[in-house]
Every structure is written in C-alpha cells, then in structure tokens.
C-alpha cells in the first residue's frame, strides 16, 4: 500500500505560485533526493505542463538540474486531465473515475507517491485520499495567489517539523 503525499513550497500566507519561489541550491538538492526516493508522481494538468520542462535537456543547466531531470524522468507519472490528449515519456493519462484510479495506484504500489498541484490535491483531499501533507514554508508573504489548500478540511495532526535549509521549514501533517 503506497502512501499519497502532498507537499509544495509555499509562502507564510499559504500561497504556492511556483514562479515566486526560486529554491536555493540546498533546497533543490533536497528535492533531488526526495524525487529519487519516490515511487511515482500524480499530476494535475497545470502542474504537469510546468514540470514537462524537465523532459528536455537545456543548454544552461548546472549539474544539479541534470540530476533532478534524471531523477524525475525515471519516475512513473500519472496525469489527471480530461483535456490533454497525450502525455510525455514515462507518463500515463487518467481521464475518468479519479477516485478509483488513485485507489488502484495506492493498492498496487508501495512507498511514497507524490501528488503535485493544488487543484488535484484539493479534489483528493475531499475524497480523503491524501495520507500526508508537507508544507515547505518560505519566509515570504505574497498577499494573494493560489492557496496550498484549495478549501477547508477536517483537522490535521502535526507529526514532524524540520528545518530543511536556512530559510525553509517543513511541517508534516496527517489527518487527525
């Protein structure tokens, strides 16, 4: 049985807009290790389209970017979308009955499956399918944007608080 984990960088006021977060090199290295250890990643369309950047080498990449791309490409990806017609390498499209599809993924795999994208995470939260939330809090305040939590949810329970880099603290919660 795999564990479904939703974690993203966010501001202190809870917004996740990816262009506002330039991860430091130490944080980026943390994410390389994190992706390496994953069983796979479930994407919503929007976040998958952002992440497809990593499917193709870029001339200006540093070693860490190549490392991240290699880790990311090696992982199975499941993309939830009704509008996409096709997806890239090592990715599978989920078009309908998301609940059954995610239940199936969790049942067929072990380890950790990441959920990426606040919209998809919101739907899976409502279905009670997310096992763990990881808030990577950056010391910035955006005032507006896309929230990490798409809506209200029942209480959580803190299981860990870890300083990941000098300026980022990660809070880990499970449903209470």
């Amino acid at each position, binding site marked *: 049985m795999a564990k479904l984990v939703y974690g993203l960088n966010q501001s202190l006021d809870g917004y996740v807009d990816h262009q506002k977060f330039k991860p430091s090199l130490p944080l980026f290295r943390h994410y390389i290790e994190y992706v390496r250890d994953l069983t796979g990643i479930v994407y919503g369309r929007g976040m998958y389209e952002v992440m497809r950047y990593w499917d193709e080498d870029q001339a200006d990449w540093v070693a860490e970017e190549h490392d991240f791309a290699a880790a990311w490409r090696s992982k199975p990806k499941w993309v939830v979308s009704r509008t996409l017609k096709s997806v890239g390498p090592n990715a599978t499209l989920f078009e309908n009955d998301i609940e059954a599809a995610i239940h199936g993924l969790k049942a067929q795999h072990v380890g950790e499956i990441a959920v990426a994208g606040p919209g998809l995470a919101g739907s899976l939260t409502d279905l009670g399918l997310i096992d763990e939330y990881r808030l990577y809090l950056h010391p910035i305040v955006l*005032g507006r944007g896309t929230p990490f939590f798409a809506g209200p949810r029942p209480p959580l329970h803190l299981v860990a*608080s870890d300083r990941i880099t000098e300026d980022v603290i990660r809070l880990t919660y499970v449903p209470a």
Partner: protein
Amino acid sequence: MGRLVFGMMQSLDGYIAANSQLFGTSTSPGVPGGPVLPPPGPALARHFNDHMLGLAGMLYGRRMYEVMQYWDEDQPDWDEGDRDFAALWRAKPKWVASHSLKSVGANAALVMEDVGAFAARLKAEIEGDIDVAGAELAGSLTALGLIDEYRLYLRPFVLGGGKPYFAAARPPLRLVKSDVVGEDAVMLVFVPA
C-alpha cells in the same frame, strides 16, 4: 528601545479567524458553516500567559480592544485559567488606536493621533516587547516597517477562508526560531530580513 511584536494563532492556511467567527463586517472570503479556529488548549493558553507576563504593554486596534475588554470584568463562570489571564491582562499598560472611541477602560490610554507616529514614539520611549493586537493595526504598522517581530502560532486546522494574519504582501522575513508549543501549535518567529 522597545520592540513591536505581532503574534497570533492562525490556521495552516493563514487565517486568524473563520468568516463565521468574524465580528463586524468583512469583505474577505470565507466558508459559511465551515471549520473554525478552536480556542487554545490549556498548555497553549499557559504559553500565551507566560508570553504576556514578559510584555511591556499592548498596542490595540479598536475592534480587538473591544473584544478583549471582556477581561476587564470578572465573570461568574471563569475558571482559574481565566482568572489568571484576566489578572495578567489588567496589569499591562494598553494603548488603543481609535478615531471613534471616546474613552477606554482601566489601565488603557486612547491614541487619537496618527498611529504610525505614536508607535514609533512608543518604541523610542519604552523598553521591552510591546504586543501589537489586531490584524488591521498590524497591517498598517507592517506597511510602515514598524513591526520588529512576527510570531506565527500555526494550529493544525484548515479554514479555507476568513481573516488573514498578514493583511497584505510584505518584503521577505527571516526565520529566527521554531518550536512546538502547547497541545498542537507550531510557533515560528520571524524578523524582517
């Protein structure tokens, strides 16, 4: 030289109160009938009491002051924790920024002048930490660059909307302390970067 400190409990999505907990009027989004931010447990309440004990005083906005004035008068249903808090609260000097109030209660002074100028003077004249109470007031003082420390007490609840701790965007902060406090809170202490 004093320091202005803004600290409050909030949900994981950054709200100090759900829409259904708000008093007065509000244009912020909220979820009617949704979850609310529960009061602190006994251990977290003790933490807040200890923190208050160390304060030089509190600077209030009108609405928060009107809520807190509840503590000026003994209530028959109070327990020991309530009485302890009331004693602590009454002992602290309070300054209340308001253009509409005509008078304030015991151990409180009405601030009718420009609150930014007053807060700057208070910092110059008073030693120790002065608590800023009220998100609007904190927002005004943040915009003026007058807040020296932000204390976020994150409770494990997700409200989906309501009154935010940060009234608006602001320049980056720097994390100086993190701790698990009370039953269920994570305290994060930030200063301007």
